[in-house]
């Protein structure tokens, strides 16, 4: 095979020469993933069976993790998958199985005041639409590239600080750990029959 054809073959399957800033934010993937996310969200609020809802929510969460990746936020995407899809959703499924739902499958899905709730949500949606239509200028089209390779280091230096200096959010981070501790204690005290 001659070298020029070889180069052509390589370049045909090569998207970019600069791997750091590959154009991952292609419209096709954006529409696919956001469609998946919204469809999952819709199934969450309409399915009768809680396990189906949980599965739909998992689809939404994973699609959103990919959206974060498209926004050059790999660390947030990883946290999303580990904490949400691997932790919280397993907890949800566990609880769904504990509180047996034999009866729930025949119950009404929505509460009695559902028209009020729907109306309120519609009002919220109208608010969003008007804000987006009127305030279109507030959201410029630009996308400033954040270096993706050092994303984790940068997030870490904001959380923990660097070179002996306290980070911008170190204190908030400690507070968050305290919040988690309180949540653990609360959950244990709430669910344990005898302490």
């Amino acid at each position, binding site marked *: 095979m001659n070298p020029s054809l070889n180069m052509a073959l390589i370049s045909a399957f090569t998207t970019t020469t600069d791997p750091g800033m590959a154009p991952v934010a292609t419209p096709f993937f954006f529409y696919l993933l956001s469609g998946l996310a919204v469809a999952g969200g819709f199934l969450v609020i309409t399915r009768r069976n809680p396990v189906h809802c*949980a599965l739909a929510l998992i689809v939404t969460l994973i699609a959103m993790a990919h959206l974060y990746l498209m926004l050059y936020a790999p660390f947030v995407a990883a946290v999303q998958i580990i904490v949400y899809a691997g*932790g919280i959703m397993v*907890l949800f499924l566990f609880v769904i199985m504990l509180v047996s739902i034999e009866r729930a499958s025949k119950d009404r899905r929505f509460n009695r005041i559902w028209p009020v709730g729907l109306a309120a949500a519609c009002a919220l949606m109208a608010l969003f639409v008007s804000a987006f239509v009127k305030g279109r200028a507030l959201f410029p089209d630009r*996308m400033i590239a954040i270096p993706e390779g050092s994303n984790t280091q940068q997030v870490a230096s904001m959380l923990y600080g660097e070179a002996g200096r306290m980070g911008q*959010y170190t204190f908030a981070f400690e507070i968050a750990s305290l919040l988690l501790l309180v949540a653990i204690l609360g959950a244990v005290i709430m669910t344990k029959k005898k302490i």
Partner: protein
Amino acid sequence: MVPITTFHYLVVAAALFVLGVIGVLTRRNVVIMLMSIELILNAVNLNLVAFSRMWGRLEGQVFAIFIVVDAAAEAAVGLGILIAFFRNKETINVDEIDLLKW
């Protein structure tokens, strides 16, 4: 095709937010209401990360991580309350949780 901008992400986030609000306001099952709250939190997260990309700053991502932490705490406590309640009243439907109305 139109290039994808911050605005597109905001629209997706708004749609998910509204879906979550509908879920919280209309469903009876507490578990599904908690899931809807997760949807809302995720919509906020998407907004924050999209803004972080728009401004080229990382504050949005840091806030998104804090929100994930908060969501984990909320889920743990919420499900704990749910189990404690189920043990006492054998129901997880929110409109049968009416002890305070007696």
